[in-house]
């Protein structure tokens, strides 16, 4: 042993600590929603496509639905849009959109250009409802059962693969079979 090896030894120890640190760092995808297993927050918001109408989440009781939080300002939402359109085609479960902190005209233009996968889109202009749902960042997608209980939450752009592996198995068999 000579003293010139000492720096290398100290660095090796540091590298180990950093490696453990990475393992422990909170990953975006693994923060579960405190809502899972609990009742989805109720809300009443104007409908984006027809602002004279209001949408009440209580109306959804008795149905499975997917609650998708998006905004035109969010790149990930654009990425997942084609997957949402595909999911719509399977008609397994209705998609409810929450247009988060957005300008209505831009959102409408988005839907007319890219296609509208949603049964209904609620306009959360101030972002208050997203806060109640505990949304960290768009896009986020929730699966809610007929009792209004949040079953699953997916963070980040939704892919068809994630849909097949994470959402479909959680649906009751007759609904999942529709694909």
């Amino acid at each position, binding site marked *: 042993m000579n003293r010139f090896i000492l720096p290398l030894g100290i660095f090796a120890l540091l590298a180990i600590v950093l490696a453990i640190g990475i393992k422990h760092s909170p990953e975006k995808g693994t923060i579960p929603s405190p809502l899972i297993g609990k009742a989805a927050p109720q809300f009443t918001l104007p409908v984006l496509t027809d602002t004279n109408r209001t949408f009440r989440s209580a109306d959804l009781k008795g149905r499975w639905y997917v609650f998708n939080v998006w905004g035109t300002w969010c790149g990930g939402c654009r990425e997942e849009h084609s997957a949402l359109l595909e999911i719509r085609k399977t008609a397994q479960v209705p998609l409810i959109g929450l247009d988060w902190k957005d300008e209505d005209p831009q959102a409408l233009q988005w839907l007319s250009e890219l296609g509208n996968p949603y049964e209904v889109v609620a306009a959360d202009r101030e972002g208050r409802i997203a806060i109640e749902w505990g949304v960290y960042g768009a896009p986020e997608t929730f699966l809610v059962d007929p009792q209004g209980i949040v079953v699953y*939450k997916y963070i980040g752009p939704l892919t068809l693969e994630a849909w097949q592996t994470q959402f479909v198995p959680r649906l009751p068999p007759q609904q999942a079979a529709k694909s």
Partner: protein
Amino acid sequence: MTPRRKRLVLVLGIIAGVSVAGALALSAFRQNVTFFFDPTQVTSGAVATGERFRLGGMVTKGSVQRAPGSLEVHFVVTDFKHDVPVSYTGVLPDLFREGQGVVAHGKMSGTTFVADEVLAKHDEKYMPPEVAKSLKKRQAESATPGGA
């Protein structure tokens, strides 16, 4: 003094200086480190009375109150299992909002946390990491069969 002895004196002096500095740094470290607790830990009495610590969680929606025209503000910090009321006098950071993560420095006074500093992170997309971690832990504890 011979060159050899001079060298020895120099080396010993350096070693003594470094150890004194190390000892003082360690004691400063022990006195000045603040620990992080979430509302559940605070409610269960994990915090010694009079200890300064960091409280973190979500600001409960609708809990922010202040007497009109006063600098004193009251709000509730929650981890969705337990709540801790917080009082603070001063200017709140730009990103302080109901329903967002927050970290406050201060002490308990009775059942209220008296904060002398309130921090909200400069990015509305992410939570302060320790808050995210604590929420995750509390969530795991209450996970029911059938939940994700």
